[in-house]
């Protein structure tokens, strides 16, 4: 039985009226790399054993494949394989890291001050913020630090926020909307010097930029499969062994994953994230150069044709494939509608169905009106220069048409 897709992947066939749009939403999700799919296929079918049934060959083969995958994921972030816990995705990893650390600290307090304070940023992903809000309801205190207009954290403000009672700092490695890369090594050094755990949601960063949990002194790091050309439904949490980051599990039961995450491991998904990690490790450097070139092409091309176009987030310290623009005076949702040939978004997929302006852009100091004009463009492994040129044309044409309409409406005229 074959699982291989027969037809060409959608989006790559020649443009037709009903063809799928060009995919430029790679911060939302990425296409499964065919090489990852090939690695996964046998584990969907003939190698179906339960990896925890080690009394027989089916189970042992599955278990061995999972350990191989664990090593591949660990290698990508310079960790020991024993420090990787497989989860159902980055949302679960973030929930486990934050709530797990807090609950452990409450159950097993260290001597001295109780550690019941968490510091995070106002621009974190919803699943980090929601986990923190839940902990506040449970009696923990949380500081939500504002960011600079660039989207970066101010290190002195972070240092000032830390107290004797601070347990954990959670800062996203690379941002899902504006792509900015935080100064992880500096944050790590600061946290270590204060005996505070450092958690980083690296769902967007893993496999895109070099990460080293040792050099950066990261204690907990969240990883997603489907953001790095792997499958949906799998992620991992790095949990430092020395000095050990202690967590209480969110999901208990059979005691899998060293007691930190029970449930039968999905072997094909684990194999998929492992292969995705191995590919990223091998190709990341060259791919970053290629993506940066495409990104610059898009940015330059668009800036030339859209007056007043503004880039959100730091221009230098950002993911190679990410752009986030304000198209002045043009509501993002209108622009998306005007460009049916490209798949782009206003921001985080989790909240992109809502009509609220992006809380991330608001946190950069943008007004509601400006934040409503924000468009996120995510280039990825399968993006071609032709697609970038097509996107420039589509966005520039859409923007100029909408600007003309707005101008006419402003003059009391009616669009024809």
């Amino acid at each position, binding site marked *: *039985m074959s699982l291989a*897709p027969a*037809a060409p992947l*959608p989006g790559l066939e020649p443009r037709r009226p009903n063809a*799928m749009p060009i*995919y430029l*939403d790679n911060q*939302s999700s990425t296409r*499964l790399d065919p090489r990852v*799919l090939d690695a996964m296929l046998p584990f*969907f*079918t003939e190698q*179906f*054993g*339960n990896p*925890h*049934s080690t*009394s*027989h*060959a*089916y*189970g042992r083969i599955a278990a061995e494949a999972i350990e191989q995958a664990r090593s591949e994921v660990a290698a990508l972030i310079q960790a020991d394989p024993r420090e990787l816990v497989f989860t*159902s*995705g*980055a*949302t*679960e990893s973030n*929930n486990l890291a934050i709530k797990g650390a807090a609950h452990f600290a409450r159950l097993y307090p260290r001597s001295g001050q109780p550690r019941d304070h968490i510091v995070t940023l106002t621009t974190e*992903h*919803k*699943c980090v913020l*929601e986990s923190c*809000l*839940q902990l506040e309801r449970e009696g923990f205190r949380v500081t939500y630090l504002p960011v600079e207009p660039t989207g970066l954290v101010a290190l002195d403000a972070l240092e000032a926020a830390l107290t004797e009672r601070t347990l954990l700092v959670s800062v996203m490695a690379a941002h899902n909307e504006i792509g900015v890369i935080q100064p992880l090594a500096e944050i790590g050094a600061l946290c270590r010097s204060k005996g505070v755990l450092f958690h980083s949601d690296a769902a967007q960063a893993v496999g895109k930029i070099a990460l080293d949990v040792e050099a950066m002194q990261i204690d907990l790091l969240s990883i997603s499969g*489907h953001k790095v050309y792997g499958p*949906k*439904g*799998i992620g991992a949490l790095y949990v430092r062994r020395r000095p050990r980051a202690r967590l209480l599990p*969110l*999901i*208990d*039961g*059979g*005691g899998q994953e060293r007691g930190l995450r*029970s*449930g*039968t491991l*999905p*072997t*094909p*998904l684990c194999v998929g994230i492992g292969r995705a990690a191995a590919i990223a490790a091998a190709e990341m450097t060259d791919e970053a150069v290629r993506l940066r070139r495409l990104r610059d092409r898009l940015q330059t091309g668009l800036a030339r044709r859209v007056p007043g176009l503004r880039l959100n987030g730091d221009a230098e310290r950002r993911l190679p494939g990410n752009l986030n623009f304000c198209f002045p005076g043009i509501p993002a949702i209108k622009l998306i509608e005007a460009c049916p040939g490209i*798949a782009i*978004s*206003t921001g*985080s*997929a*989790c*909240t*992109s*169905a809502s009509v609220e302006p992006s809380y991330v852009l608001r946190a950069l100091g943008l007004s509601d009106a400006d934040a409503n004009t924000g468009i996120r463009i995510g280039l990825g492994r399968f993006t071609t220069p032709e697609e970038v040129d097509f996107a420039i044309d589509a966005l520039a044409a859409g923007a100029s048409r909408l600007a003309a309409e707005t101008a006419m409406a402003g003059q009391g005229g009616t669009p024809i």
Partner: protein
Amino acid sequence: MSGGAARHGIMARTETYLDWNATAPLRPEAAAAMSAALARCGNPSSVHRWGRAARQAVEHARSAVAALLDAPPEGVVFVSGGTEANHLALLGAGRDRVLVSAVEHDSVLRAVPEAERIPVDREGIVVPEALDRLLAADPRPALVSVMLANNETGVVQPVAEIAAIAHANGALFHCDAVQAAGKIALDASAIGADLVTLSAHKLGGPPGVGALVVTGELELTPLLRGGGQERRRRAGTENLVGIAGFAAAAIAAGEEIAVYDRVRALRNALEADVAEAASEAVVLGAAAPRLPNTSAIAMPGVTAETQVIALDLDGVMVSAGAACSSGKVVPSHVLEAMGVGPDLAGSTIRVSLGSTSSEADIAHFLRAWTALYRRCRDFSVGARAA
């Protein structure tokens, strides 16, 4: 499975998989649905066309999974598997007091370690009067969790009666139907549960996906917070491929349920043959209603670990109990709750059949099992004589 098996020192020979309660092979229908889903990219929460196509696939799957239980589609919350679903049910229902049967899966028992235990009788069946007494003794709003069928013995609980007792006492009822789904016909209203747990990989879908089905209006407190997915009951980007495979497997399992009449006949034949070969062999829970595919067989005097290893060397794959803990050999809490002594419990293996199990599989098991039994008996007779 030759390449990998050879690496593990197993020579090419007949291999017989009788560990379906640990995980079932992927159904071809699920593979086809996953193949189609794998060709798509897109986050179901995205507004653009790729996102909308993914959303449509998820909602279609939701209806298919709901149909397995004859439950409303909007009640289906997709999660990462049975373990998470059980946690969401027990921790998310918002009841301070939780009562669980003594034979529940570890993912229930450990979700709320302080939960009160409802005793079972010698066949592993919940004692309804005991539940009634426990509920009546404490007026706090409670949640009762009793599995539909046990993973180790296959014993099926009288869930309708349990649900009635729970509801009469103002309690919610959660039913872990992970092992029963796909093996016996299910109907949410007949089960009477407010919450039902399902797992894809036990019914021929992929691992890494499951569902908690809410049959009524119950509000759930999420276990995982973040984006507003699954009607705010479970955050995280949906496992699109897994969900598509789950749905296809659920449809196929529902259509194929009659196959289990044949499986039951095979299982019964296996037990009859075991009894004939060894008069002291015991089938645990045999007097109770059971799943058609499961057999917990004790070979007194021979540890389960020895049996599992010896059978594996002969190419027959079974387990010593639940897969989750089968890496480590610990006494089964299920058998202990049934009053089975440690010696007998420690010599019990689980044989679980599936929809493609054949007479040849049963014959292979019987050859290997009988040979082992004779070797051990002769050895112990020899030891006594010496």
